[in-house]
């Protein structure tokens, strides 16, 4: 008997179930979305993220957001993801910002040396101060290898929290191979419970919240 057959048979025998037997009725999923006006959501998001050492900036338009990015970079090199919002904002046109990587080796090489990584954010989660990336055009290494991560988030995408996200995306795997919630800069307290930032991921995260809605 294969390991698969053996394991399934052990489990069924222990539970007194038969192959192909349907499951008992599932407990209903618990989803509770609080109602919170958008300005409140942004205020809460900022409060929660800043407690963790993250930074929040506001911008009226995508073009203004690109201006904020330029200020943060001060001419340093950066890798930007292939999110359409970054191109639309003009972030990819900032000098020393490279983008459009589609092959892994060159993306990896660029991320390993760049001091800044710039991505979009598909959502913000106010209750936890998190950003969510679900889109396939958000390369994972960009928010991971460079020491500073900058993310652009449209105000309209600010959700209350996990429950609202899972209502909009009950099956995230149907959209992409990887959905990531990022809640503040990389951290560790493994040595004497002393907080250290930037252990493997970025030590700084800036989220620029933009009034303009991208259509």
């Amino acid at each position: 008997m294969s390991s698969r057959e053996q394991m399934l048979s052990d489990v069924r025998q222990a539970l007194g179930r038969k192959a192909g037997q349907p499951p008992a009725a599932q407990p209903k999923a618990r989803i509770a979305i609080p109602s919170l006006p958008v300005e409140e959501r942004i205020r809460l998001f900022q409060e929660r993220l800043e407690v963790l050492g993250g930074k929040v900036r506001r911008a009226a338009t995508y073009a203004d957001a690109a201006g904020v990015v330029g200020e943060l970079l001060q001419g340093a090199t950066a890798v930007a993801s292939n999110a359409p919002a970054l191109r639309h904002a003009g972030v990819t046109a900032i000098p020393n910002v490279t983008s459009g990587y589609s092959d892994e080796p060159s993306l990896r090489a660029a991320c390993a040396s760049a001091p800044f990584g710039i991505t979009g954010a598909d959502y913000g989660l106010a209750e936890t101060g998190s950003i969510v990336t679900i889109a396939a055009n958000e390369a994972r290494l960009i928010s991971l290898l460079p020491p500073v991560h900058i993310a652009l988030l449209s105000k309209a995408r600010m959700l209350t929290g996990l429950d609202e996200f899972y209502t909009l995306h009950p099956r995230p795997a149907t959209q992409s191979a990887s959905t990531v919630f990022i809640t503040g800069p990389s951290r560790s307290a493994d040595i004497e419970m002393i907080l250290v930032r930037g252990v493997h991921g970025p030590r700084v995260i800036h989220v620029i919240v933009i009034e303009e809605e991208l259509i």
Partner: protein
Amino acid sequence: MPLIQIQQDEQIRSTVADSKIQRAVYSATARLKEKRSEVVSAEALPEYQELRTQANLIKKHTLENLDYYLEQFEQNLTANGGKLIWARDGKEVADFILNLAKERGVKMLVKSKSMTTEEIHLNEHLEHHGIDPVETDLGEYIIQLAHDRPYHIVAPAVHMTRLDVADVLEKNLKVQREEEPEKQAMIARHTLREKFLAAGIGISGGNFLVADSGAVTIIENEGNARLTTTAPRIHISVVGIEKMIPRAQDLAVFLKLLGRSGTGQLLTVYTSFLSGPRRAGDADGPDEFYVILMDNGRSRLLADEEKRQSLYCIRCGACLNACPVYRKIGGHNYPGAYSGPIGAIITPQYHGIKENPWLPFASSLCGACAEVCPVKIDIPKILLELRKEVVESRASDGDSFTERKAFQMYAWMMRRPKLYALAGKMASTFAGLPGVTSFGPAAKWARTREVPLPAAKSFRDQWRDRKKGAQ
């Protein structure tokens, strides 16, 4: 042989006497306890109890129908382009990884923190066959360099001071000695960054397997799990069958509980939901994505409806921080990978009660563990069940012969008042003498207890005298 032999007796004494370890573990667990209390309080999270109840219900339901969800998970993971490997035990896990590494010519692999691979001593197996597994969680990395083992489910190096860490890094990496945690972490970041980019395989654990999505959910704070699951071309998650949950939507419940209970965080820094290899158009992510579903004694626990709840555990570590025994004897005196109250119930069940019969007895049954458990596992009740099993299995072996005889004699004497009075008198005369409790079974009993001295005058004598006085 006595009923319960605590093999680690000497080792426990030395831990209790070690003021450095006592201070480190006490203050770390106190801090984690406090942080947890703040974020689960009624003001901070009014729905906390409701979330616990829901988490308990979901785990109960999933395990009761586990075969269905295992197959559903397999179907969805396969549809996503991933591959499911079924492993009955640790050897099958190691064999699969070794064969794959050999086939692809991989000599070095990176690992993110996984209690499941600790449980099966995966690193030793790999090293034995010439493969170099590199732990990448900061605490785990230090532990690996020190040839030590994790002290705590969520804080593996909690027993070490920064000076210990300085020694370990200096000696093993031949770097300049640094005593500041910040600088020590940067040494690790620098060294491990090269490993991430060079490793052929990344191995992770998994906090949840999501059946309706064929996805593995991993939570962490450092980013090492994201790197492990992203940079190498091949990814393997090693996960116990009990980590299954039915729907992605159920994560709305579990994620709120796990970070809060473990480290007092609303969410950990990174929550990754990974459902297979990179897809067309993805710029990065692994080309091959494997999930190894491991049994290793778990299905055996399913048969008993009461003890089945041991498998609800989401490895937050809150019961360790709450446990007066763990906080005193520390993590290394528990056999196996899992320490504290949860270790005391799952280790003897995974490996059989005969291996570690003393474990269920290493508890005062104060109930602090059950009170903080986010999925409401009734740990004290399971400890009692396991004690019962140990006693039943030993009674027939004649181990409790002395105890049985003692109680038979006591019962016989209780029915003879004159003899009982005489025995009482003798006890109060002799028990006070030095040395009476230094021999035989009495000595073992007295070693960890205050022996109460019988009163100079028995109750019966006092009663008689009072009656006389009243007349």
